[in-house]
């Protein structure tokens, strides 16, 4: 029997980016807020100081900062006829764990989606005709527009100190920035990062081919910066340990660096760590949440009553918590009815690897979000009329380092071990180079999430089951993008190059990205969405899913965190300015 705790105004599940932003915004309003976080407290000085944060084996290979599968994992399969089996060791994607969530281990690549991404289906129907969209492709318009979200993108970028160069200020094109981006109300908070040699070479080659390269917007920042919460970030040192690592320089935007020092001072906020929320509790009508139940590390069960429940865990785990709590109708791919678990999507990435002639690249000098990019082939920035696919992505340089256990290029045909391998590794390390594409992943009727019939977690609850594969549309898109990237690679006159467009089946053992989206998607119609335009549950109006990537109706050709942060602020404003004045459904 759960022990009941004193009531709070707001209980937040998970203290990552969205949880900490919502906590700060609502606690500032005077609400009594508690966050329940299943992982440990983490901060820079104790958990990833510059004395040992740069440990590839511990963090990059043994995955010390990530969720342990024994705590939660999921089962995977490529299609509905297969038996799903559990991911026993995470490798294809890497969910975070602990205070800060994915904000601790991310690379810092901070993009906005394109204006036409937000009305994707109606835009494509208008430009190409409704009959051109594959029947099983379940893409849909967002219930918000780019113009509505712009101020919230701006707020998140200012919170995180993002480094970059605007390409479109209030509708006026700016040299040096991304000419395809939506309008921005202000320049980036900090100037672009410096570029290493590989990125400078890419920019030169792309320019020669007529493209307009620009520095990738970066959460690893170019100079010290004090954000609107009064917290000061440090300068990036190009150490090459971002992806999978915490930053010892306070230079990578994270909840730790950008929010927690201000949040933790608020007397009406507390966080309960090492405590896993097992369900959102509903009253007898099923229309109102009464709080959450959680289990601490001793196995003790607690009930935390609250007026508002904010589901702010990692994307996939938001979906599972909604399924386990019985909020919203579970999706059935056979009938196409139901919503929770629907429109799971991913990201379609690919790369071209090269060995360059007589070059000392020093690719270990890098940041997780440095690099020069081009956006000519993203979204609908190019005519898809005769291409046989929709979608696209950005592409560019931006190798995140050259950590030698996982980055050891050798020429084609080199044996995997022995004298020849050793010689080739020594000769190639400093001239091997990788460039990549980062493409959209649209949603399909039979790509979805539900509860697994066989496998259980350590508390005896069913694991979530993921059914996903790359579809013809995405494979063609990746081939097209990779061909364009290979043309740029060729202009670098490499000794050799290998282009690797994405092919199916999706393989859960090969790391591609941790951009798992959808499952609790936002929309204008409760028949095809779990939450409304304010990220509020259609069914239980005091439950919100404030902007985790689980609310994306499909995934676009950019990294999700910028949009996740914008939606967190958007939801916070909706709660502050609308819900608190008149609790109940906002739509």
């Amino acid at each position, binding site marked *: 029997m759960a022990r009941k705790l004193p009531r709070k105004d707001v209980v937040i599940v998970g203290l990552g980016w969205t949880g900490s932003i919502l906590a700060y915004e609502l606690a500032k309003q005077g609400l009594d807020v508690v966050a329940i976080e299943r992982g440990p407290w983490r901060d820079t000085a104790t958990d990833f100081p510059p004395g*040992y*944060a740069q440990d590839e084996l511990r963090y990059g290979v043994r995955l010390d900062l990530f969720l342990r599968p024994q705590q939660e994992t999921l089962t995977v399969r490529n299609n509905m006829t297969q038996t*799903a089996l559990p*991911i026993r060791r995470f490798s294809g994607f890497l969910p975070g764990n602990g205070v800060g969530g994915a904000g601790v281990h991310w690379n810092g690549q901070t993009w906005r989606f394109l204006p036409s991404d937000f009305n994707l289906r109606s835009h494509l129907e208008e430009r190409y005709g409704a009959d051109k969209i594959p029947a099983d492709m379940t893409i849909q318009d967002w219930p918000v527009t780019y113009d509505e979200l712009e101020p919230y993108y701006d707020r998140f970028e200012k919170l995180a100190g993002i480094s970059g160069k605007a390409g479109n200020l209030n509708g006026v094109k700016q040299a040096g920035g991304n000419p395809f981006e939506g309008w921005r109300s202000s320049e980036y908070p900090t100037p672009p990062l410096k570029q290493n040699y590989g990125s400078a070479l890419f920019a030169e080659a792309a320019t020669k081919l007529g493209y307009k390269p620009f520095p990738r917007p970066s959460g690893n920042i170019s100079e010290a910066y004090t954000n609107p919460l009064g917290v000061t970030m440090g300068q990036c040192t190009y150490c090459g340990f971002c992806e999978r690592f915490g930053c010892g320089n306070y230079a990578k935007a994270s909840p730790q660096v950008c929010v927690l*020092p201000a949040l933790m001072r608020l007397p009406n*906020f507390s966080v309960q*760590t090492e405590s896993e929320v097992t369900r959102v509790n509903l009253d007898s009508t099923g229309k109102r949440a009464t709080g959450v139940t959680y289990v601490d590390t001793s196995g003790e069960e607690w009930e935390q009553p609250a007026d508002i429940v904010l589901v702010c865990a990692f994307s996939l785990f938001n979906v599972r918590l909604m399924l386990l709590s019985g909020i919203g109708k579970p999706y059935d791919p056979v009938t196409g009815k139901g919503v929770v678990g629907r429109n799971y999507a991913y990201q379609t990435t690919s790369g071209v690897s090269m060995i360059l002639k007589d070059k000392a690249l020093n690719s270990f000098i890098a940041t997780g979000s440095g690099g020069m990019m081009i956006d000519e082939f993203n979204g609908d920035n190019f005519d898809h009329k005769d291409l046989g696919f929709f979608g696209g992505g950005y592409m560019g340089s931006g190798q995140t380092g050259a950590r030698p256990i996982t980055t050891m290029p050798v020429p084609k045909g080199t044996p995997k071990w*022995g004298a020849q391998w050793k010689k080739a590794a020594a000769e190639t390390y400093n001239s091997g180079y990788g460039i990549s594409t980062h493409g959209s992943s649209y949603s399909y009727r039979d790509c979805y999430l539900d509860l697994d019939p066989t496998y259980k977690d350590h508390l005896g609850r069913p694991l979530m089951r993921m059914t996903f594969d790359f579809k013809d549309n995405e494979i063609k898109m990746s081939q097209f993008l990779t061909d364009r990237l290979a043309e740029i690679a060729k202009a670098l006159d490499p000794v050799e190059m290998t282009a690797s467009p994405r092919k199916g089946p999706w393989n859960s053992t090969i790391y591609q990205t941790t951009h798992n989206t959808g499952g609790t998607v936002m929309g204008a119609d409760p028949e095809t969405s779990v939450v409304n335009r304010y990220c509020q549950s259609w069914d239980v109006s005091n439950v919100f899913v404030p902007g985790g990537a689980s609310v994306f109706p499909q995934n676009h050709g950019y990294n999700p965190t910028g949009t996740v942060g914008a939606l967190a602020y958007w939801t916070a404003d909706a709660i502050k300015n609308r819900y608190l004045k008149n609790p109940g459904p906002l739509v």
Partner: protein
Amino acid sequence: MMHGSRLSPLSRRSLLISTAALLVAGTAARARTITQGMPWEPGTASPPLQVRAGPWMFFTPDEAATVEAAVDRLIPPDESGPGGKDAGCAVYIDRQLAGPYGVGAGLYLHPPFMPGAASQGYQSPDMPAVRYRAGLAAIADYVKSSFAGKSFHDLAAADQDKVLSGLETGAIKPKGINGAGFFALLLQNTQEGFFADPVYGGNRDMAGWKMVGFPGARYDYRDWVERHNEKYPLPPVSIMGRSDWTVKE
């Protein structure tokens, strides 16, 4: 010389603590309520503890001899520097197998274990320590029966390479194990040992990093990021510093 009894009581204790600390880090911190400011407590950081030379902690002497011979073929000594054996790869693997990695700490080990598609990943309950014990025994049996009763480490280098290649391609199928799977694990662990920070027992004197020109744990390249096409000149440093700065054991 990795055998022998130079392990002081203190360093043995460090090793035990190191193993325990890693286990704890994965699972069992205590739930707590944090409020009224950023918490900080002295002594709660968890830097890696240095692997020290000393007796094998996981391998038997025969297993160790086989692994030392194998890592020296996977990464042979040459004019560019030491091979896997002198770089400490076997010591690295030994300490990994004796610790949380060996038992698959933190992984999802609930049954049922069913074979699946390659895209679904590793689906056996056997964790690395079990796989090494079984794999090395099966290889020893195979070598004994194929090479007139010899042990792997007694074979000529060319014969050792033949055995390793046969495992890699699946041409040699030792009884009771997946030879190709075991070879892939051994190769992966050997390269980890060669390129991981020396604090874990391999990459001795930063041999792996020196070979390729990786500067290690330096953590600050602000002065170098825009010096394009100039080879970075400074030698590597480890989390422990550099061996020429520290007292030799």
